C-alpha cells in the first residue's frame, strides 16, 4: 500500500481512464459528438424558454446508458431547472 496516496487528492489514473472511456464510448456507440449535444441543448433551451423561465447554468443534458443484460441503448437525460412558468403556459 502506498502510504502517501492516502493523503493525495488525485484518483488513480486507471479510474480516470475508465471514466473517460465510459463517457466517450456512450458517444461512440450512439454515433453522436459532444458538439451535437451542445446543439441539442441550445435547441431545447430555445423551445422551453417559450413556456418557462429556466436556469440555463443549472441545465444539464447528457447521454447515458439505459440497458439491460449487456445490451446497452443510449438514453438522453435532461435536467432542466425551472425558475417560473411563463404566463403563456397557463
Amino acid at each position: 500500500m502506498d502510504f502517501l496516496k492516502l493523503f493525495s487528492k488525485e484518483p488513480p489514473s486507471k479510474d480516470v481512464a475508465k471514466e473517460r472511456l465510459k463517457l466517450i464510448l456512450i458517444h461512440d456507440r450512439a454515433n453522436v459528438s459532444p458538439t451535437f449535444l451542445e446543439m441539442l441543448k441550445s435547441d431545447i433551451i430555445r423551445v422551453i424558454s417559450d413556456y418557462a423561465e429556466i436556469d440555463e447554468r443549472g441545465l444539464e443534458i447528457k447521454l447515458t446508458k439505459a440497458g439491460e443484460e449487456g445490451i446497452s441503448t443510449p438514453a438522453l437525460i435532461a435536467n432542466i431547472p425551472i425558475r417560473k412558468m411563463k404566463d403563456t403556459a397557463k
Partner: protein
Amino acid sequence: MGTSIVVTSGKGGVGKTTTTANIGTALAMLGKKVVVVDADTGLRNLDLHLGLENRIVYNLVDVVEGTCKLKQALIKDKRLDNLFLLPTAQTKDKTAVTPEQMQELVENLKNEFDYVIIDCPAGIEHGFENAVAGADRAIVVTTPEVSAVRDADRIIGKLEAKGLEDHQLIINRIKFEMTKKGEMLNIDDMTDILAIKLLGIVPDDEKIVISTNRGEPAVTDPASKAGQAYKNIARRLLGEEVPFMELDNEESGFFSIFKKLFRR
C-alpha cells in the same frame, strides 16, 4: 469441417499477429490440424512471426486469382507437421481480394483443417471486411490503454452488426505491478466497459520480443509467461476450463524478497 476464427482489434500494434501465431502454434501442439492465414495483404508479417519468411513462393492473392492451387500456397511449419501458413501478397493491396472470395477460400480451408486462424489487419476498412468474411468466431485483442479499448469497442459493434455473435476478448500486455497500484486498467475494468466474454489475459513479457526476433512463437518456449497464457487460451478454445493466470505471482516488496530467497 473445421472452425474459422478471426483475430482482430481495430487498433494496430496490440498484438494480433503475435496472438495468431501463438494460438495457431499452441492448437497444433495440442494435436489439431491448423492453418494460420495472413489477411493483411500489403503488410504481411505472420510469416516473420513463424520464421517462415524465406519459404514463400505463392500467396493468398495467387490462390484467389487462380495462379496456383491452394495446396501450393500452403507452407508447412518448421517445427510442427500439422501447422501451416497461408501467407498473403506483400506487393498488392487489400482490394486485390473481395469478401466473397475470402469466404470461399476459408470454406475450402475448413474442409482440410480443424482450425483456420485468420490474422486481421488493423482498421475497419476493406481488409477488415475481408478478414471477417469467412469467420465463424472472433477473438478481439486489446491492451489496457484507452485508445485500444475504445477501438475494441468499435470492432465489437462492427462484429455484432455482421451477426458474428461468437466473439471473445484477449487482454494483452497486462502489467500486473501497475494494475495493483491502480495505474493501469485492470481486467474487471475492461470487461465491465466492453461487456464481452473474456477468453484470456496475457502478461506483458519481454521474452515476446526475443521470440519474434527469432521467429519462434512464445508457446514453444516453456519458460515464457506469455507463452503459457497463450497455451491456456488454446485449451479454452477447445472447450477446456482453464483458470485465468494468477496476477499476484510477481510479488514485490519487503516480504517477497525473503520468499524468493527461500524458494531457491
